[in-house]
């Protein structure tokens, strides 16, 4: 068993929202760590060794332990470093937080991926599904500063990436779902989120984000076009 003072490393690409969830959580807990930049188009032997099943970032390496899948990493961090808890203490509230985290992955993250990586009808489908997911999220957040009320916590860390990333995603892929009139609660929460100290101080630079997302979008379109040609 590793002690909590053992060295911590985070493998990431620099711009993936899933690794930034981990950065925010580690910062929230005051845990020092080393960030190891991965080139996801040319995966290192370290990444392949530490996440052999999915071969994806983020991966948290803590001594001899390597943990992958960002929601699982968040729980590992919360259980290993007890100060500044992220998940609520009450089992019912924890269950609800986990439920909404999973909801956001299925009904917001997945449609965003579809809207970003696809074109035409498939993209429109993703955008529509995203709108519906945001409708439900709006009901959850409207009138509250953060998902837990006044306190910043787990669900904000899980969903908060959209406050910053969605803009670049939409710009690069040519869609727009964030209608302030349809989602006033989400719009306000996004502003609250970006004002939190550890978030403000820990966001990837916007020029790097824009150039990365333009490149990823070009790669997705090239992939779609090459598939069409081979039909």
């Amino acid at each position, binding site marked *: 068993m590793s002690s909590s003072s053992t060295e911590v490393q985070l493998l990431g690409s620099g711009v993936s929202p899933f690794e930034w969830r981990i950065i925010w959580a580690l910062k929230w807990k005051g845990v020092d760590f080393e960030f190891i930049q991965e080139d996801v188009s040319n995966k290192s032997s370290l990444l392949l060794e530490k996440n052999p*099943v999915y071969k994806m970032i983020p991966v948290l390496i803590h001594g001899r*332990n390597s943990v992958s899948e960002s929601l699982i*990493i968040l729980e590992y961090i919360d*259980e290993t470093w007890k100060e500044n808890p992220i998940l609520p203490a009450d089992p*019912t509230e*924890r*269950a609800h937080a*986990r*439920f909404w985290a999973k*909801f956001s992955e299925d009904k917001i993250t997945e449609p965003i991926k579809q809207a970003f990586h696809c074109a035409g009808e498939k993209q429109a489908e993703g955008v529509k599904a995203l709108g519906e997911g945001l409708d439900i999220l709006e009901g959850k957040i409207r009138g509250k500063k953060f998902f837990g009320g006044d306190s910043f916590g787990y669900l904000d860390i899980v969903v908060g990436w959209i406050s910053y990333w969605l803009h670049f995603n939409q710009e690069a892929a040519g869609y727009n779902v964030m209608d302030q009139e349809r989602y006033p609660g989400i719009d306000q929460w996004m502003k609250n989120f970006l004002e939190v100290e550890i978030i403000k101080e820990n966001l990837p630079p916007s020029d790097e984000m824009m150039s990365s997302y333009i490149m990823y979008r070009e790669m997705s379109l090239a992939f779609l076009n090459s598939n069409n040609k081979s039909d």
Partner: protein
Amino acid sequence: MATSNVKVLGAWPSPFVNRVRMALKVKSVEYELIETNPHEKSELLIKSNPVHKKVPVLFHGDKKICESPIIVQYIDEVWTDGPSILPSDPYDRAVARFWAAYIDEKWFPLFQQLRDAQGAERGAVLEKISEGLLLLEGAFVDCSKGKAFFGGDNVGYLDIALAGCVGWVRASDILIGAKFLDETKIPRLVGWVERLYSDSSVKDLMPDPQVLIELYKKFQAVSNAASE
């Protein structure tokens, strides 16, 4: 703690409902099963899980919890005087959660794909199922550390996650003759499956594959008639 206020909404053949029932059995918590019809979304189901309209739902007093992995963790965190379901070490917990998520997101959905696949596609899906079983065999070696179950001496979170699926895996085995549970390829998992049928927490909640096959055939007949 009062246990008469615990209810589970769900259908007996559902692997996900059975996980919840296994977890309650581990903790010796009595509950009422409210049987649902898997082909009809009842008013109670829609009211209880308005977001997904799916079983299982756990009612505990005035609380309702959805999603089987979340419910199982809730059960573990509420009934603390029973045996633990999740391991105590944070890394072991992360590993158990990782493989349970793998089962739900990548591996078990392959069985639905198998039902829908035609021709050459079927071979590809069968291949993926077998590769997944090899990964789970490796996971068993890592997690069990030489003991009887993923959770060690007793069934734990990952045992419950996979045990819920075993009836359907065996039913698919019989229907297709695929021999998923091949002791020459996954000897430890095959041994583990046998032990499940003797374990007091789970044995009564492992549906008979033949009964599942009959149910499946009936469902297919109804779907075919409806689409004609």
